[in-house]
């Protein structure tokens, strides 16, 4: 149980990332095809995947705004893939082969999109047409308030009108200009097509019509589909959900989260499934999953808890291979710059530098995460998207572990340093050599660090931070809390609003912030970013982020990256990778695609033993 929450929390956040997209990208990166593992593929076979934590509870691809279960994507993505297929192998690029569009053209100053759909078919043989897109648009137009994936101001609200010149062409007339890459990568990559010819009705026995074309009709159809989409007992039997355009069909679904996919025989895409069945089997905790892995037979692919990394050799003896998936995101301690008690302290850059200097990230990676983690040198992971690493981050970031530098900084700013005690401010004031604005004489250098409880590696990491900070007299009081409690008590705090009720948190380590396709800081570090809980605000930062959004040079990105790394809007932490184990005769699993929101079993196949 102690190890259980990570995956659930991580997966939920990953799903949120895909759902609530960030607001910018940089250069266009539509790239080459995937690198597939070679081998003598066998046709057929069943793969059983262990799913830890929660399980899906909604099958209609547009869940209501109250349903934030990130596992629903796992269930629906294989059945109704998105227009734009994000991620290709391990690379953060769009995969044009698997995407539903043939071409995407931006015109009229990037405010009109002309999309030509591929001549693919639904599983019942009916062609996929532009009418299916207008069906989606019409439903969302009248119901976007009740769609969990809706982001303020974006699709469908930003669409002036949709024109369909022919059966395969959709013209989207937008209300404003967008960066094309942003719209492709982060908006169209969240829209699944729906079969108008099968779903445009208001009751199970009712006839299909063009109900979506009126407001009342669209509301009725959407309500009907959402209602059906929540009845777990009929997921596998409801005829609605048997009409799919993805590589898979749902064959079985038990209310406890156990479900099975079988290939969609009429799938039009290039990656036709070779396996004859994929089973997703639920585990209550990774303890239970790990015990099952260790005893052998029933799981073909599962997550290996970090705690058990040292057992890889035993698992290899049981016939497994270990694979590592770096997580696309940034792990951090968020400092609350507007906490009523020590917000003023944290607003001083040198205090944040002291805190960062005292975190021994290299050792945490080595000892807590057994080497399977990004060191967290700055806002961008070094294990991921090599093209995004600035030389500064590659070299270890601006603040490598150094207690002596931390102590020197404190002394230079008028603090009395008491190693293993609590430092106090000796020279209050704002002159050079003083503690800085908002810090009173005698004030202790003390912070409460809230972190997600129930994860052994988190306990280990934060206890280590507490000890290494104490070496320079920075007192950290640890407060582990369940993930949801942290979420519910963390308010947005900034210069304008920082009520005591929601801004009493000081430092916080809830996990990590996932990135969508691009590791951009938009949304995290700009003044009104949705991930900017601590109220960091800098005109220069905003400007640098804007530059990455509209410019295309890596110089602009590196400028943003280095400035952010130095300014410490977050205190950077190591970000643990996901470790998976799978049966050694199973191929096509690596390289992972962390961006598609789920696993891609259509790429998997068994190989002949010995080949």
């Amino acid at each position, binding site marked *: 149980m102690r190890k*259980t929450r990570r995956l659930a929390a991580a997966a939920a956040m990953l799903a949120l990332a895909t759902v609530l997209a960030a607001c910018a990208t940089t250069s266009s990166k539509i790239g080459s095809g995937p690198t597939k593992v070679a081998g003598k593929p066998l046709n057929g076979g069943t793969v059983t995947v262990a799913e830890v934590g929660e399980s899906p509870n909604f099958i209609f691809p547009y869940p209501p705004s109250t349903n934030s279960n990130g596992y629903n994507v796992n269930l629906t993505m294989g059945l109704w893939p998105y227009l734009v297929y994000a991620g290709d192998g391990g690379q953060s690029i769009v995969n044009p082969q698997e995407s539903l569009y043939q071409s995407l053209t931006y015109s009229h100053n990037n405010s009109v999109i002309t999309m030509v759909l591929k001549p693919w078919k639904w599983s019942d043989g009916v062609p996929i047409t532009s009418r299916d897109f207008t069906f989606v648009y019409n439903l969302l137009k009248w119901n976007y308030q009740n769609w969990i994936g809706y982001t303020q101001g974006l699709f469908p609200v930003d669409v002036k009108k949709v024109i369909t010149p022919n059966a395969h062409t959709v013209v989207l007339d937008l209300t404003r200009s967008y960066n094309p890459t942003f719209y492709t990568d982060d908006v169209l990559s969240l829209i699944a097509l729906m079969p108008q010819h099968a779903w445009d009705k208001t009751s199970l026995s009712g006839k299909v019509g063009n109900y979506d074309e009126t407001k009342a009709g669209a509301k009725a159809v959407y309500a009907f589909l959402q209602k059906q989409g929540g009845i777990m007992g009929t997921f596998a039997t409801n005829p609605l959900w048997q009409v799919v355009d993805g590589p898979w069909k749902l064959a079985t679904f038990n209310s406890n989260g156990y479900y099975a996919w079988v290939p969609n025989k009429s799938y039009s895409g290039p990656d036709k499934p070779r396996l004859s069945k994929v089973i997703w089997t639920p585990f209550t905790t990774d303890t239970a999953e790990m015990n099952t892995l260790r005893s052998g037979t029933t799981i073909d692919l599962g997550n290996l808890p970090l705690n058990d990394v040292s057992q890889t050799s*035993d698992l290899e003896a049981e016939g497994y291979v270990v694979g590592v998936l770096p997580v696309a995101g940034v792990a951090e301690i968020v400092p609350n710059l507007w906490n009523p008690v020590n917000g003023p302290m944290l607003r001083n850059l040198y205090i944040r530098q002291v805190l960062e200097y005292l975190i021994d990230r290299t050792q945490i990676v080595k000892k807590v995460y057994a080497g399977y983690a990004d060191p967290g040198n700055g806002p961008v992971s070094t294990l991921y998207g090599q093209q995004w690493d600035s030389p500064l981050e590659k070299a270890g970031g601006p603040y490598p572990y150094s207690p002596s530098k931390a102590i020197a900084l404190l002394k230079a700013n008028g603090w009395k340093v008491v190693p293993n005690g609590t430092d106090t401010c000796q020279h209050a004031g704002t002159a050079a050599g003083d503690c800085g604005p908002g810090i009173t004489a005698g004030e202790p250098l003390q912070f409460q660090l809230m972190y997600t409880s129930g994860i*052994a590696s988190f306990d280990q990491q934060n206890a280590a931070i507490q*000890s290494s900070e104490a070496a320079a007299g920075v007192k950290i009081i*640890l*407060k582990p809390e369940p993930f949801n409690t942290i979420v519910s008590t963390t308010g947005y705090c900034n210069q304008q609003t920082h009520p005591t009720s929601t801004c009493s948190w000081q430092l916080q380590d809830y996990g990590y912030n996932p990135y969508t396709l691009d590791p951009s800081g938009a949304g995290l570090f700009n003044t009104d970013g949705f991930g900017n809980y601590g109220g960091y605000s800098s005109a220069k930062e905003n400007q640098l982020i804007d530059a990455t959004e509209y410019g295309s040079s890596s110089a602009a990105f590196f400028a943003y990256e280095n400035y952010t790394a130095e300014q410490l809007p977050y205190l950077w932490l190591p970000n643990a990778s996901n470790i998976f184990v799978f049966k050694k005769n199973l191929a096509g699993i690596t390289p992972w695609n962390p961006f598609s929101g789920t696993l891609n079993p259509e790429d998997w196949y068994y190989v002949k033993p010995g080949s």
Partner: protein
Amino acid sequence: MSASETLAFGGPAEAGEISSRQGAPSGGGRLTLAAFLHNRRTMSGVGIVALMGLFCFIGPVLYHTNQVTVNLAIINQPPGPGHPLGTDEYGIDVLGRLMVGGQSSLELGFAVGIASTVLGALYGALSGVVGGVGDGILMRIIDTLLAVPLFILLIIVASMFSLSLSVIILILAVLSWPGVARLVRGQVLALRNREFAQAATSMGSTRWGVLFRHMIPNTLGICIVTATFGIADAIYALSALSFLGIGPPPPFTDWGTMLTDGVNNLFNGYWWQVYPPMFALVLVVLAFRQIGDALNDIVSGGQTGRVFARRRRRFGWVPMSTRYE
């Protein structure tokens, strides 16, 4: 009022009530120091507890270790020179940790055992002496408290305060007294009908006089037995909390938390993180059981173990409705 009437108002029959229904307690009933000291089993139990106390509280004076600073460089080291029982996942010496953890476990156990017994005994005695409708109301309050889910309380308290040993002692004491109260009430109801109580009343003693002069001293036996068990249960409860991930933050530890962390590493082969705290925990619980059992024999006149058996409500078993009593 007859013993049978008590049942009409009675809450669920607890062990104490059972004995009351089977006639008045026979024999001595009152615990004397002499009886205590002359009982072979109490003395062996007390001996073990005393040794453990010495180990935990005096041990660190002789065996110096840093139990506060995490040292990632030396985590999970097997027993060897410098660390006779190896190190744990924080790089802290396990032998030293066993002592410090034992301090927390014993402090927790004693504090909760005593606090809940005192509170429960007073409430239960009051309820028994008042009798009638008042007794009914007091007992229904207890039923209500026992049915409020533990998890809710724990998570709420944990989100409002930083969980420290004293907060946990407070929570567990608050949660465990209702069970004791029921037990003592049953005993008081039985005693109330005995000659000495009736005689005292007829000689002009007030209700409260009877309560303090006769009832409470006469229930002392059960109270001590209850307390010995409260100790073991509190230690167990904290281990369950850490297993569920809502125990106090590191570097705090106790035997239960050590076991939880150790079990996490069991498949890694770090046996030195599992067996020492397990041994210590089982030994102490058995010692307390020995004391409780023997005391009970003394209290009940050397022949039965009547009030001894308590139903322990455990996390694994009864996770939330009730809790270990």
